[in-house]
């Protein structure tokens, strides 16, 4: 048993070392043992229900295993306890003893837990009664699109954490992975009906402080609702595995008082109108290239990589690609099937390449196509104008 003694020594050394390293760092850390502070009626209900449940199951755990552990100490062979021989309840009293726990369990299941759960479900699924506004959320690999049908606002929201932070080349920021370029802005105190769908695979929209989580399913609309009670910035992320960048698809909601919200709507409308107007003017090559670089880095670089080298074998390289360096349009100015423009506008079915005409503006599309044809060593020298894209839609 020499080996065993040595083994015991090593285990001891290992655990002591471990504790020496882990305990100081653990003591510094601040822990969260429960749901984050709720800010909607549903989240408050959920937290309350959850806290109740935790008490109930802790009591059950302690009582049931308390009995078992009592028995383990009391009824052991080493204390000379003689085993009984019963194999089931005998007599009325024992039957009562045997059945009472199940009556209690039934009560817990269908009364203590079942009744509040019923009301919570009805409340959670009632998305329409007295809804003040609609927010449409579209999940796509790997970003969210937000649409305000009442005011015609529509934009994309992508993670803004720099890739260098993820690769540990830079210090991680306070909101590492939970920050976006364009957050959703919602008014406080209003019941917002949230409609969800997806353009590619299933995503799940989740903000823990709202207490709602709902899948965004391609080809179908799902709905849920939120009524945010306090202004603030609330962070969550995609909760259904949706491919490579599932972990990098945050949801950030900024809740503001109504007046501020209305001001934001006006500002956003002006911004979008300006962008739309840009589609009608003629752009210079430099303008297209500069805007295209911007779009490329936000939308395309995730898969096709910053230098256009792609990620073999799933995400093809754009540098030297046959499609990218192929003809721009037909001689009559029509869309060529499977050409570069066709791919960007309409995507490719069955792959992660999506139809960007649904999410990008004419100018963004023109810019990024021009950029791709004239970067990473591609040197086509041609360009496409936003007005041409508009006519191809």
């Amino acid at each position, binding site marked *: 048993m020499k080996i065993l003694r040595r083994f015991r020594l090593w285990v001891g050394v290992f655990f002591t070392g471990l504790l020496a390293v882990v305990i100081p760092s653990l003591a510094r850390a601040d822990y969260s043992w429960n749901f984050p502070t709720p800010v909607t009626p549903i989240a408050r209900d959920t937290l309350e229900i959850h806290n109740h449940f935790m008490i109930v199951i802790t009591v059950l755990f302690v009582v049931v295993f308390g009995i078992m552990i009592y028995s383990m100490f009391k009824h052991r062979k080493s204390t000379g306890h003689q085993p*009984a021989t019963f194999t089931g309840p005998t007599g009325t009293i024992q039957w009562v003893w045997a059945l009472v726990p*199940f009556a209690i369990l039934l009560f817990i299941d269908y009364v203590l837990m079942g009744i509040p759960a019923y009301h919570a479900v009805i409340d959670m699924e009632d998305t329409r009664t007295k809804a003040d506004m609609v927010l449409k959320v579209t999940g796509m690999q790997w970003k969210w699109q937000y649409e305000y049908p009442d005011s015609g606002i529509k934009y994309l929201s992508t993670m803004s954490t720099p890739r260098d932070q993820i690769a*540990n080349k830079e210090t991680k920021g306070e909101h590492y992975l939970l920050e976006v370029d364009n957050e959703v802005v919602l008014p406080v105190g209003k019941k917002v009906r949230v409609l969800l769908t997806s353009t590619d695979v299933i995503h799940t929209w989740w903000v823990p402080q709202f207490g709602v989580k709902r899948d965004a399913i391609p080809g*179908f609309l799902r709905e849920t609702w939120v009524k945010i009670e306090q202004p603030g910035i609330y962070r969550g992320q995609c909760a259904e595995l949706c491919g490579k960048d599932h*972990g990098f698809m945050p949801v950030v909601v900024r809740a503001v008082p109504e007046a501020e919200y209305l001001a934001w709507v006006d500002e956003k409308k002006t911004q979008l109108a300006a962008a739309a107007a840009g589609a009608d003017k003629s752009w210079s090559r430099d303008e297209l290239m500069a805007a295209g670089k911007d779009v490329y880095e936000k939308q395309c670089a995730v898969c096709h990589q910053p230098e256009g080298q792609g990620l073999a074998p799933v995400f093809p390289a754009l540098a030297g690609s046959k499609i990218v360096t192929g003809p721009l349009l037909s001689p009559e100015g029509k869309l060529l099937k499977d050409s570069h423009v066709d791919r960007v506008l309409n995507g490719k079915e069955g792959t992660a390449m999506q139809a960007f005409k649904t999410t990008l503006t004419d100018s963004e599309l023109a810019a990024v196509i021009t950029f791709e044809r004239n970067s990473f060593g591609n040197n086509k020298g041609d360009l496409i104008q936003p007005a041409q894209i508009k006519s191809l839609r």
Partner: protein
Amino acid sequence: MSTAPSIEHDTSHGQHADEHYRGGIMYWLTTTNHKDIGTMYMTFALIMFFIGGAMILAVRAELFQPGLQLMQPEFFNQLIGVHALVMIFAALMPAATGFANWQIPLMIGAPDMALPRINNWGFWLLPPAAILLTLPFILALFGIGDGAVNTGWTLYAPLSVQGGMGVDFAIFSIHILGISSILGSINIIVTIFNLRAPGMTMMKLPLFAWGWLITAFLLIATIPVLAGAVTMLLTDRHFGTSFFNAAGGGDPILFQHLFWFFGHPEVYILLLPIWGLIPHVVSTFSRKPIYGYKAQVYSFIAIGLLSVVVWAHHFFTAGLPVAALLYFMYSTMLISLPLAVLFFCWIATMWRGAMSFETPMLFAQGFIVLFGLAGLTGLVLADVAADAQYHHSYFVVAHFHYALFAGGIMGVMTGVYYWLPKWTGHMFSETLGKWHFWLTVISFNLTFMPQFFLGLAGMPRRIPDYALQFVEFNAISTVGAFILGFSQLIFAYNIWKCVKGGKKATAKVWEGTDGLEWDLSSPPPHHSWEVQPVIK
């Protein structure tokens, strides 16, 4: 269930068992002996347990700190999915089938399984399936394809429609594993129905055999549904059908319904054999007969029936109609009743017994307490409203590891320690067994307890990198996982030592045993019961 077989007769067979063993690869490829096949199943399960474990240790290492250190998300996604498939289909299920092969003939007084050649085939389908599942990893090293299935083990469409050839490999692997499971199940049902010793009525059948009988029926009922679902996936991927594509009139949620119609019973498929063996162990080491035999049998049947009507609680957030949400919530809660019956009977079996705490008993009690946590957290997960918060989060990951590691794997370990002396004829090292138990229990909780809190704090599953509020618990969980993983080497070493030699085991092995298998010598003769015992 006492019997009076001739011990002398058995001993003589024990000796000439060696004459049957010829050794060599052809022997193992063609053997139809239930004990040989059981041994192969158990060995295969142990090897795959370490392979699946190595995969998840790589994942936990990546999650030790935020940021991407060791691997890119694509590879991370492959590891998590293949880990689950390997652990469920190639470790837990074969281990349970290994138990069935070894034990059912011994326990019901049969010479062998009823369909020995099918038995052989059932096993030999497994290695090719495991190779199919993991081969894409190796192909990717040579630049062929993009690695293994990267959709998680649930293969949700349309992500799996989009995936690379790893998905096709997984589909074919699942087909083969499914055929193997169905063959095994048919064999077990036929054996139990036809080869019981004279006088062994169904209500005298050992609980382990009862648990397996229900599992076998569940497998036959649900595996074809899974096979159908993945075949539909295959045709969606390659032959232009649109079962799961809304643009073609299909529905992605249809896949989830089909998958979980198999997937929920699968949980009980994994656990029923364990629930069957736990009472035997508890009764042995409490030196007291099993409490509530009939109640446990009826609970097995009730759980089996309920398990096929509660599947949608696995996707409450997919946007089901209110009526469906309420139905699936209340029906799921109903499972807590038969399950509570089992807990009640296990504890009542210990009550007023004369307990001793050898390794199998320790594992059985560890199983009961930790699996209790899985049951209780399962009860709260059934609540649709609270589930909106728990779902897709680490809370669920923790919950099902309490069910499938503490419930499944620790249950298998209970059985291995309980029956190993019977199989090998040697006692294992009790000291190593106790070390293994305590290291496993402590590090298991160190690994998975923090994951409950991660889930509550809002960390989603299946992410390769996480926000900074999740740092501490992830670090603790990774440390726990590594201790847990490496502790299992003690298990493997202990088994190895026990196979090679050790103190001779008696026929009864443990003081308080009761049942036919303990009337045979350790190890049992080659043809187990050549003369069937008569049950009075």
